[in-house]
């Protein structure tokens, strides 16, 4: 058994009394709360406030050590509540805000009221692309994987390949990010994450 450990890699299990200090929290709008959860297998919580577009995110403080077209990310998370979205992936946006139409990014998302989970991806030009999986949105934990090289982006869920794209792929250096946003309706939106691993290959 072996694993390619030569390149940059981070593993976070979201345990302990608080978020590991390597992460930086950011609030793009509203007054999000960030907390380690006191519950079995629920990891770390990002919860938005009320208000249109209220959002909170965690990232590596714009320390971009990952290669936008040669990285993989494995994560376990869920949209726990709310009529908003949770996005987990990579970006060159300084604060870890995912889903923009202008940044290099590639991320999995669970967005209410979409029918299916999907990916957002962009090569940094003012456009942005989306692609749906066949997996309905829900509030359960799933295991997500992203795999991007210079020609192909792949997105897996619970071990199964769901999406393959070949255009609008990110380039350049990027950072790890978890992003939670409330839209205009419902109560607060909460995302919970209990594992995240990112590495260059």
């Amino acid at each position, binding site marked *: *058994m*072996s*694993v*390619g450990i030569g390149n940059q*890699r981070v*593993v976070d*299990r979201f*345990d*302990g*009394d*608080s*978020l*590991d*200090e390597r992460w930086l929290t950011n609030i793009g709008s509203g007054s999000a709360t960030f907390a*380690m*959860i*006191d*519950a*079995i*297998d*629920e*990891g770390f919580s990002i919860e938005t406030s009320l208000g249109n577009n209220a959002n909170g995110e965690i990232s590596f403080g714009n320390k971009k050590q990952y290669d936008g077209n040669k990285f*993989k990310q*494995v994560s*376990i998370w869920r949209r726990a509540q709310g009529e908003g979205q949770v996005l987990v992936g990579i970006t060159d946006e300084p604060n870890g805000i995912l889903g923009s139409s202008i940044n290099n990014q590639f991320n999995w998302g669970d967005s209410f009221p979409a029918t299916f989970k999907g990916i957002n991806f962009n090569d940094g030009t003012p456009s942005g692309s989306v692609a749906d999986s066949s997996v309905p949105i829900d509030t359960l*934990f*799933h*295991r997500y994987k992203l795999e991007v090289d210079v020609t192909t982006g792949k997105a*897996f869920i*619970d*071990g*199964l390949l769901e999406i393959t794209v070949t255009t609008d792929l990110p380039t350049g250096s990027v950072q790890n990010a978890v992003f939670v946003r409330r839209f205009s309706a419902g109560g607060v939106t909460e995302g919970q994450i*209990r*594992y995240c*691993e990112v*590495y260059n*290959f």
Partner: protein
Amino acid sequence: MVFDNVLDIVSAERGELKKSWFVEWFYGTQEKAYWTQTNHQGSATWAMADSINGGLTATTASAQTRAELNFNNKRHYNFDGAVAIGISKLDVDNSTVAIGLDNLNFTGIQALSAEGSNVQPFFILITRGAGTTGTFTSVPIDTNFHKFRVKIAPTFAELRLDGLLEATSTTNLPTVKLQPFLGIGNNVGGGNIRTTAYRYYEAFNI
């Protein structure tokens, strides 16, 4: 077989939805900030050792002391299906070292732990639920590092010491969610400080 990520290595199968799983190696200048230091009686100082394989040390004051590191009641672990593994060692006399899972910061009764105490002849499995049960192993206490592995299941708890099953308990099993903890005791005080050491900790739900 080649794996390309850590999660695949520790998963039973590709795509497994891994439950909470924590690993700590105790290196660097100080323990990570996600640990909370709790003093129940007296106080202890936690410091990274400057010695080969030294890990993290806990040093008591010269009075009787009971202290622990924990997650400040962020309890991600099952009372009926979890494992905790630690490598730690005792001081020469009148000290206690403990590794396991607990609730309510040690004084709150509910716990599963492996302990060594100089007031007992052998290393011991402790289960704390409605009451407390101590089950001796056959391994005499000493001041060497040992690998402790405690497991809690719906109907029993067990302690494996250095790879061997040494103690099993079916009474006073915890009934509430649990958090990792490392404990130290100065059993007598009397002007003597005590130091215990910890160089690995791991916990996961099953």
